[in-house]
Each structure stands twice: as structure tokens, then as C-alpha cells.
């Protein structure tokens, strides 16, 4: 979807409130947002829940806001980031409330699976038909910011201006960080 096309759908949805226009925007951005959430949460089920929460928020607030194609993208990703932050906050609260025994049980059974899912063999291959395990293990070693930059730049194909508005960082800093991350991955892949 081009920027002009996105602008048109945004305007039409704002004027009419027709679900058909929103459906087109939704289908265009759903995969991007899902990936953005998934690589931070590292749990398929939770990623789906959070993604649905994000799009409900978007649907309820889209007509209220005056957005164009450029601002819409950064607005959408910011909603996603805030929802993820809220999720982690809730998780930390819940973990602090439970007893130590319960926590050990949980970490043994479920959480360890989720946290170390990348290390498990054939996990992503079964789920997503993604076979580059080496790259996934490298991604797990990166910081959150590095991961986000790589995803937003090369997978979601956003420009540095939009990324800088999403991550609240200068474009020059993003470029430098991106190059260093690429260099690190390149060296690790070719060892």
C-alpha cells in the first residue's frame, strides 16, 4: 500500500466510518505489528492477545485523530509499544505477588519454554516455516533497541524519520546503531 493510498483510506474512514476502509489498513499493518510484538514478547499466544488489544485501540481512536500516512505509522507503533510496556508492567506486578514456590513452578514449566523458545529446535520452523536458526539465535543476543531497529528498517521497511519518532532517538544515532548491529550479525554469520 502506497502512502497516497493509505492517506485516502484514512480520510475515507474518518469521514464515513466504514469498516471496509479500516479493513484494508488493518490487513496492511497486522503482520508488521504482530512481528513487532512477537519479537519483544517471545510468546505466540500473548503476542496475538496484545496485537488484538492494539488494533481495538486503533479502531476506537482512529476517527478522533487527524493523521496522515507518515504520522499514522508512528502513532500505530507507539500504541503498540505502550501496550507492550503495559503488559510487562502487569507481568512484573503479578510475579511479585506470587510465592517463590509458585514462581519456580511457573518458570520451570511455561516461562522457560517461552523465554528460551529460540534455542529450542524446530520451534519457529514448525510455527512459521522460518529456517534460519542461526540468525534467530543472534537476534536473541541483541538488545531490544537493536532488534527493533532491524525489524522496523528491514522487515517493516520504515524510513529513519518514522523510526526516530517511534523510538525517540536521533536519525544519526539510529544509523550508527543499525550499522554496528549489521556488522555484528555479519561477522557472527560468517564465522
Amino acid at each position: 500500500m502506497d502512502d497516497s493510498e493509505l492517506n485516502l483510506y484514512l480520510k475515507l474512514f474518518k469521514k464515513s466510518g466504514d469498516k471496509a476502509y479500516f479493513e484494508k489498513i488493518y490487513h496492511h499493518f497486522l503482520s508488521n505489528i504482530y512481528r513487532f510484538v512477537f519479537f519483544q514478547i517471545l510468546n505466540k499466544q500473548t503476542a496475538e492477545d496484545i496485537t488484538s488489544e492494539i488494533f481495538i485501540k486503533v479502531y476506537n481512536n482512529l476517527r478522533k485523530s487527524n493523521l496522515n500516512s507518515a504520522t499514522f505509522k508512528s502513532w500505530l507503533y507507539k500504541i503498540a509499544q505502550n501496550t507492550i510496556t503495559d503488559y510487562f508492567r502487569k507481568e512484573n506486578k503479578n510475579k511479585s505477588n506470587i510465592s517463590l514456590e509458585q514462581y519456580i513452578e511457573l518458570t520451570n514449566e511455561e516461562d522457560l519454554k517461552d523465554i528460551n523458545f529460540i534455542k529450542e529446535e524446530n520451534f519457529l520452523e514448525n510455527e512459521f516455516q522460518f529456517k534460519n536458526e542461526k540468525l534467530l539465535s543472534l537476534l536473541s543476543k541483541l538488545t531490544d533497541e537493536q532488534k527493533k531497529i532491524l525489524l522496523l528498517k528491514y522487515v517493516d521497511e520504515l524510513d529513519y524519520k518514522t523510526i526516530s519518532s517511534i523510538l525517540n532517538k536521533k536519525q544519526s544515532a539510529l544509523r550508527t546503531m543499525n550499522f554496528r548491529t549489521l556488522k555484528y550479525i555479519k561477522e557472527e554469520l560468517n564465522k
Partner: protein
Amino acid sequence: MFRKNTIKYKEKVINKFISLIDKGYDADYCFKKFPIFDYYKDDIKLYLNTINNIKGLKTIEPTDEFKNSLFEKITQNTNQYDKNLFINNYNSYKSSKFKKPFLKPVIVFLSAFLFLTFSYTGTVFASQNSIPGDVLYNVKKSAEVIQLSFTPYSKQGKLHFKFLNNRINEATIILNKNIILSDIEINNLLNSIDYEYKKCNEHNYLNNQDKQKINNEINIIKMQYQNRYRKRYGPRNSNINQDTTSSTSNNLPTELNTNVNEPIDTMKNNFNSNSYNQTQNNEQDINSFNKQNNIDQAINSKNNDGSTNSNANLNNSTEITNGLNKGFNNNNDDNGSFK
């Protein structure tokens, strides 16, 4: 060649290549356009492979089942959304109007300006009935100065006459209510009466009749203040002057001999230099003067003018002010009037 072998230079070139790719340029075009990239072709290819590997993450997508179920879930909230549509639209309208950053200083300035203006005008309005000694009296005086500065010269006489009325009115209120003020405040009040009278004359605003009436009124006020001062402090000078022939020969008090423009300080000095007997006689004279209700005749006989033919027998100062008020209203349509 040496420069090309340095790591920093190499990284710089590769970084440049990647930034060109990021901008949407084709890799082959970049190699053709900039021959320097050929020198690091192998390294650049490794970077391109890495980028392609990362782009492979696009295959991670949600299932079709999830996509469809989520859209249904979202559209279920439509009814709830429509209920809040009006409120939301109103809020967005409100926020779009007032969240513009450039409007903030304008709104702040306007609100501050309006607040100051209304608060000052309110204070001025409240100070209209104030008299010397009140907290708001200075506000009243400052408002008069401002009013005068915004009035053209041709209309200033009318305004000075209004202020003169105000001063005389204030002086009579103080006398009637027996309000005790400091000597400085009384002196200032009498000085301002003289000043306004002088200004009225400068602007040729008063007729001869009005002048006469006002002059008499001012004389009476000054006399009453002197009388009051004497009652309050009594004689202070022990060197009594026995020459009282001039005062006793007249029915009028000696204070009427004083100049109209004489301030109270000079009156005080005169009073100190006069004799005690003289002051006693004067007090008797004033009492008789008030009882006779024959003020016009007394003034005329003292001044030897003979020109005033006013038939009004003014019993006290308030009646005089009423008479002035009538004259004021006949001459002008101004709001200023005596109470």
C-alpha cells in the same frame, strides 16, 4: 591506496553504500555509479546477504484464522464506539482548537490583559464613593489623572469642574460625618480644591455667577475646617495679642478675610499668631453666623462687591452644593454632580 586499506575508511564506504540501499537505490546501480564500492565488493556482498537474511523474517506472520477472528472482534465494538462518537468528535474538535502550540502565549497574554483591565476598572468603580483616608481614595485620584490624560484640552475644563465638585463633596461629607483626618490629608484636600478651581478658571469654564457661588462655598468649607481645627487643638500660643478691634467690629469671622487659595498650613500659622481673645470672639461669631442663616448677605457685605444678587438663602453647605449641582446640570450634560 594506503587510505583505502584503513578500517575506518572501509566502514565509511560500506556505511555509505548501505545508506544508499536504504534510500531505495539498486545495488547494481550503486556499483556502476561509484567505482569505490567495487574495491570493497566482497564485504558489501556479505552485508547485503545479512540484510536479506533479516528481511527473511517477513515470513513470520499471524495465521489467517487469527486475522479474520481479530477483525470480527474489533468490529463488535462498533456499537459502543458509535455511542461515544459525538463526545469523541467534540473532544477532538476541542483538542484540535486549543492544543495548537502557537495559541498558548496569545491566550495567556489575552487572559492576563483582560484580568488586569477588569480588575482595575472594578477597583476604580468601587473607589467612586471613597473619601480621603480610605484605602481606595488613591485609586480614585489615579483614575482621574488617567481620565484627564485621555481627554482633549478643549474638554478638560468640564472635567476639572467635575473633579472640583467631587473634592467639595468629599470635604462636606467629612465635615458632616465628623470624620477625623490628619492635617496633611485635610491640607491636601483643600489644596486640591484650590487647584481644581484654578484649573476651571484657566479653562474659562465658569460664569461669574458660578465663580461667586463656588468661591463662597470654598470659603465656608475652609472656615469650617479652621473652626474644627481650633476646637480640636485649642490655642497654643501664650503670647496673646490684645488687638481685637478689627475682628469684633465685624459680624463675620476673620477667617473669611483669608485668601481663597490659602492652604491650611498658612491658616495654622495665622491661627498661632492671633490672640486667644480673638479666637473666642471668632467662635461666637461663627455660631451666630450659622444661626442667622444669612450667609449671602454676610459675604456680600464683607467683600463689598454688591454684584451678587442671589436670592437663595443657603442654610448650610449641602444646600449650596445642591444649587451648584443645578447650575452644573443646566450648563452641561455631564454625569458629574453633587450628592
